[in-house]
C-alpha cells in the first residue's frame, strides 16, 4: 500500500470579512474519507464540484494539513515524518494539474521547469541533469531539443506533456492527476490519456485521478471512489461500479453521463436540487434531500460505511 487515508477530515474555518480570525462555522470540505492506493493501480475519484475532490488531493500532496484522521505513506504516519521522510515523500508523490497554461512558469525554460523537483544536492552534475531531462522529455513524446524552449512555444497538449515530464523526473511511485485532460481539446485528450496509460504500464506508476469526466475516469481507473459533499459514498473495482452502481448517488451520477451514441438513450435519473452547502450539510445521509429512494431513517441516521458485496463498499441505508 503506497498511500492509505483513514478517516481523513479537513475543515476550513468560515470567517466573516469583518471579524478576521473568528470562525463563524466550519466548511467541512473533506469529512471522514478512507481510501487507499496500492502499487501500480489507478484510483479514480469522481464527484461534482464542491464534493471535496481537490481538497483531498491537496491533503495527499501535503499541501494541507488534515484536521483529523490519519494519512499513512508506506505504513508510516505523515505526522511522524522526519525531514528525510518528507524528502522521500516529495520525491515519491508528484502531481499533474488541470491547466498547463497556469501550472508552468512562463519565464522558465522547459529544462529548468522539468528539473525543478530535483533536490539541489542530488550530486548530479549539470550535464547529468540535462541528460535526464532530455530522456524524460523523450519518454513523454517531446523532442530532446524542446528543453531549451519556453512554455509559450508549445500547444496545450504539449504543455501537459511537459507537466507530466516534471512529475516523472524524480522517479515517483504515485502521481496525483487533478483533472489532467479537462482543459485540453477533445482531439488532444486521447493523446494524453494514452500517454498516461503507457507510462503506467512501463514505469509501474500508481495514479490518483481526480475527475468530473466520468468517461475519462473510467478509461484510466482500476478502482473508483465516488465523493459527495465531503464523503466517499461508494468504492469498488471500476468496472463493477460502472456496471452495477450501488449507492443512489452513484446511480444518478452515472446515468447523467451521456453515452456516445444516439440510440444508447437509457434510463436517466434526473436529480432534483443541488449539491449541499459544505458549511451546513444536511443531517443523516448527506444525499437524502435529493435521493429518489430516501427512507425515513435517512434523515436522521448517518449510514454506516460497510462492505456490501465482496470488494464493494458503500454508505447507504438501502443495503
Amino acid at each position, binding site marked *: 500500500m503506497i498511500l492509505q487515508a483513514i478517516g481523513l477530515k479537513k475543515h476550513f474555518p468560515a470567517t466573516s470579512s469583518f471579524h478576521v480570525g473568528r470562525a463563524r462555522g466550519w466548511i467541512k470540505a473533506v469529512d471522514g474519507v478512507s481510501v487507499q492506493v496500492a502499487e501500480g493501480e489507478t484510483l479514480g475519484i469522481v464527484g*461534482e*464540484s464542491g464534493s471535496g475532490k481537490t481538497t483531498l488531493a491537496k491533503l495527499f500532496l501535503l499541501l494541507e494539513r488534515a484536521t483529523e484522521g490519519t494519512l499513512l505513506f508506506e505504513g508510516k504516519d505523515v505526522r511522524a515524518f522526519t525531514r528525510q521522510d518528507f524528502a522521500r515523500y516529495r520525491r515519491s508523490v508528484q502531481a499533474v494539474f488541470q491547466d498547463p497554461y497556469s501550472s508552468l512558469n512562463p519565464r522558465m525554460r522547459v529544462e529548468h521547469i522539468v528539473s525543478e523537483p530535483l533536490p539541489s544536492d542530488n550530486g548530479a552534475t549539470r550535464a547529468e541533469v540535462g541528460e535526464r531531462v532530455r530522456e524524460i522529455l523523450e519518454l513523454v513524446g517531446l523532442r530532446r531539443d524542446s528543453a531549451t524552449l519556453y512554455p509559450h512555444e508549445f*500547444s496545450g*497538449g504539449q504543455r501537459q506533456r511537459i507537466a507530466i515530464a516534471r512529475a516523472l523526473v524524480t522517479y515517483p511511485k504515485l502521481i496525483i492527476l487533478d483533472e489532467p485532460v479537462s482543459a485540453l*481539446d*477533445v*482531439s*488532444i*485528450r*486521447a*493523446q494524453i*490519456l*494514452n500517454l498516461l496509460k503507457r507510462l503506467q504500464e512501463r514505469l509501474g506508476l500508481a495514479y490518483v485521478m481526480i475527475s*468530473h469526466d*466520468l*468517461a*475519462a475516469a*473510467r*478509461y484510466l481507473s482500476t478502482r473508483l471512489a465516488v465523493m459527495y459533499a465531503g464523503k466517499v459514498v461508494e468504492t469498488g473495482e471500476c*468496472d463493477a461500479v*460502472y456496471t452495477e452502481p450501488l449507492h443512489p448517488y452513484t446511480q*444518478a*451520477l*452515472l*446515468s*447523467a*453521463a*451521456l*453515452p*456516445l*451514441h*444516439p*440510440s*444508447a*438513450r437509457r434510463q*436517466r435519473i*434526473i*436529480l*432534483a436540487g*443541488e*449539491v449541499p452547502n459544505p458549511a451546513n450539510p444536511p443531517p443523516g445521509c448527506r444525499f437524502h434531500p435529493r435521493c429518489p429512494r430516501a427512507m425515513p431513517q435517512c434523515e436522521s441516521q448517518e449510514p454506516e460505511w460497510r462492505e456490501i458485496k465482496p470488494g464493494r463498499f458503500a454508505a447507504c441505508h438501502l443495503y
Partner: protein
Amino acid sequence: MLVVEDLKTYFYTRRGITKAVDGVSFTLEAGETLALVGESGSGKSVTCLSLVRLVPEPAGRIVGGRVLFQGEDLLEKSPAQMRHVRGKQIAMVLQDPMTSLNPALTIGSQVSEVVRLHQGLRGSTLRERVLDALSRLRIPGAETRLRTYQHQLSGGMRQRVSSAIAMSCEPRLLIADEPTTALDVTIQAQYLELLKEVQRSTGVAVILVTHDFGIVAAHADRVAVMYAGRIVEMGSTLQVFDNPGHPYTRALLRCLPDVELTRHELVEIGGQPPDLARLPPGCPFAPRCPERQPICDEAYPPSVPLGSGHAAHCWVAAGAHA
C-alpha cells in the same frame, strides 16, 4: 426558418487574416435542434455571433454570405433593426452565466428589462410576465428570487435565469453556446431536460454549440461538425454517429472515452488543430488525416452527398462515391 449561405467572418490581425468562419452554410427548421460541434477555434462561437451580428468589430468582420431568418437577410438590417431581432426573435444563452448576468442588478430587473423593451409591458402585467418566465424554467420561489443577485444563486440556477431571460420574449431561435460546460453533470442533465421541455412547448429552434459528443447524441436532431472554420460534415444525428463520412468525424468518435464501453483502445489524432491565419491550401485536416491523398493538399474538397441530408467535404469520400 433559418437559412445560412456561405457565411464568412474574418478577423484582421497583425498576423494576417484569420478566417474564423469560412463559408458556412446550413438550414434550420422550427422546433429543430442543430448541434454545432468542434474543437476550440473551429469557428462554432464565431458562427453564432455572426448570426446575430455581434462579431467584435473592427477586428472581426462578416465579409460574405447571407443569413436568411424568416425570409429576411439579417446581414442587411440596420443596427437599430437588429436590436429588435436580438432578444426578441433570436435569443442567446452563453457558457458562463457568471459573466452573462450583471452582478450589480437584481435578477428581477434583468429579466424585466428584456420584456419591457421588446414587449412594452409595464407595471403588474410586466411583473406577471417576468414571474411567468422564471417559473417556466422551474425556478423555485420566483417571487423572492426577483430581489436576489446572481452571486446568491448556484451555477445551475444562474443558467436557468439566463435561459429565462432568453426565453422571456418567446424567440423563434435560441442559440445556446456551450450552455452546460460550466455545470456539474447532474445539473447538466437537469438543465438539458428542462431545455427540451421548453422547446417542446414553445417550438423554438435551437442551435446547440458544444464539444461534448454525449450531449449531441442525446439532444440533437442534426449535427454539423466544424473544423478550421468550415462545416466538414452535416447530417442527422444517427447518420453522423452510425456512418461518419469525414475522417475527422471518424477520428473524433474513436478518440473519445465512452462511459458505456470498457477500455476500447483510444485512437489518437496526431498533430494539432491548424493555425487559422496560415491554413494550408487544400483540406485543413489533411496534415492530421490518416487517409490523406495527394489531392487533399491541393484543393478544398467538394461536398459529397452520403444520403438524404447527409454530406461531407472529403476527397476520400468523393473518390469512393464516384
